[in-house]
């Protein structure tokens, strides 16, 4: 029996290898994210100028929507051939399965963000270089917050009906604090008069959210996955 971390790493590696083989998710998610940005840009640009702080909102909405798409798709893949069951049958602790899937999802989402953030910076003239580490920290902790609850819920729904529409329905209300924190923190950085201390406070809230909800998810994953 392998330890939890080792098993999680094996599962994450497998997911990343599957993704590297087909590259389905990375291509489709990036293009979807880009389309999101464009659609919102048309909504929020007036007379050739973006509305102030639209870029922060657009960034996080894009993360939400593409993240949901990626989540749904990655668990749909496990549904084919029922491989999620095979994972649950293995003599590894349930939390290893959760952590492995979460890790793989985070890698995918970070890759997408690495491309989308510069694009947004370009299209909306957002000052990415103003506080790059703080911005990075906000993105990382926000994505972890979204991903941790999302992975749990998406796994839960694998055997449920109406799973495509139910995932956003149950996920978005729970991750509202993550998006409030992410958007507010990012706009505090991008604002004409940047409020970096404010952004740091939001970062603290996000980190606290992550700590609490990753723990809750780890705790809940086992009971919820046994029928």
């Amino acid at each position, binding site marked *: 029996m392998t330890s939890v971390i080792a098993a999680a790493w094996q599962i994450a590696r497998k997911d990343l290898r599957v993704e590297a083989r087909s590259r389905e998710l990375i291509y489709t998610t990036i293009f979807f994210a880009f389309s999101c940005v464009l659609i919102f840009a048309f909504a929020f640009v007036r007379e050739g100028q973006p509305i102030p702080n639209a870029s922060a909102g657009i960034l996080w909405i894009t993360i939400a929507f593409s993240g949901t798409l990626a989540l749904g798709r990655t668990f749909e893949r496990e549904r084919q051939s029922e491989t999620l069951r095979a994972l649950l049958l293995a003599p590894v602790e349930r939390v290893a399965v959760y952590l492995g899937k979460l890790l793989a999802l985070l890698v995918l989402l970070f890759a997408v963000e690495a491309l989308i953030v510069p694009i947004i910076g370009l299209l909306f003239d957002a000052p990415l270089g103003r506080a790059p580490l703080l911005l990075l920290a906000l993105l990382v902790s926000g994505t972890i917050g979204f991903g941790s609850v999302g992975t749990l819920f998406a796994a839960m729904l694998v055997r449920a009906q109406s799973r495509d529409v139910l995932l956003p329905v149950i996920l978005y*209300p729970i991750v509202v604090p993550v998006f409030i*924190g992410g958007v507010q923190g990012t706009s505090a950085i991008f604002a004409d008069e940047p409020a970096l201390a404010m952004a740091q406070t939001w970062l603290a809230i996000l980190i606290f*959210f992550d700590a609490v*909800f990753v723990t809750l998810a780890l705790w809940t994953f086992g*009971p919820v996955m046994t*029928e």
Partner: protein
Amino acid sequence: MSSNSRFVPAALGLALVMFAAAPFVINTAPYESTMGLVQRIFYFHFPAAMSLFAAAFTCGIASLIYLRTRSARADQIAVAGAELAVVFGIIVLTTGPLWARKTWGIWWDWDAKLTSTLVMWLIFSSYLLLRRFGGPGSEMLSAAVGFFGMMLVPFVYVSVNFWRTLHPKTSVVPNLPAPMLVPALWCLTAFLLLFISLLLLRARLEASRSDLDRVALALED
């Protein structure tokens, strides 16, 4: 169950009597200086909000118990709590904007309490949607949503509060002058009695449903 069956009608009856008397009790309170008559919505808005939180925590704790023990009773109480959270949420979310419209001229201003309430309402509505459309086995799934929803309450409150504040501060109740405190507590008691009796009734309905399933199955034998 027999003590239950006496408690519920008694509590319900008492609640209805208190509601009937409420307008008179409220009338004894003085008018609030700046807002006038409209402020009296507070006497229903505030208890409804408290009932919403009571329902949310009931659902959350019952969900937690269900997650650990799979007790059918816990699940029944969780469903009842979620439904009541949605109902009381609707009351809060309609009385709130009505009050805001009259007082500040706008239906909705993204202030901390109302927005938090909206998010909580969404969470428990999603709980009900999951149960309705998730197919068999959604009891466990919705328990996770209910539990997470309850744990979210402080986060939603802090983040929305930090974001905007227009609502009167939380400390309004202890600072209420005595003549206003009485009707506030009267209505709060009425609402909570209503909440508890409806919770028990609804949980019992759910228990009857699963009893019916059991009997239907036994009949096939």
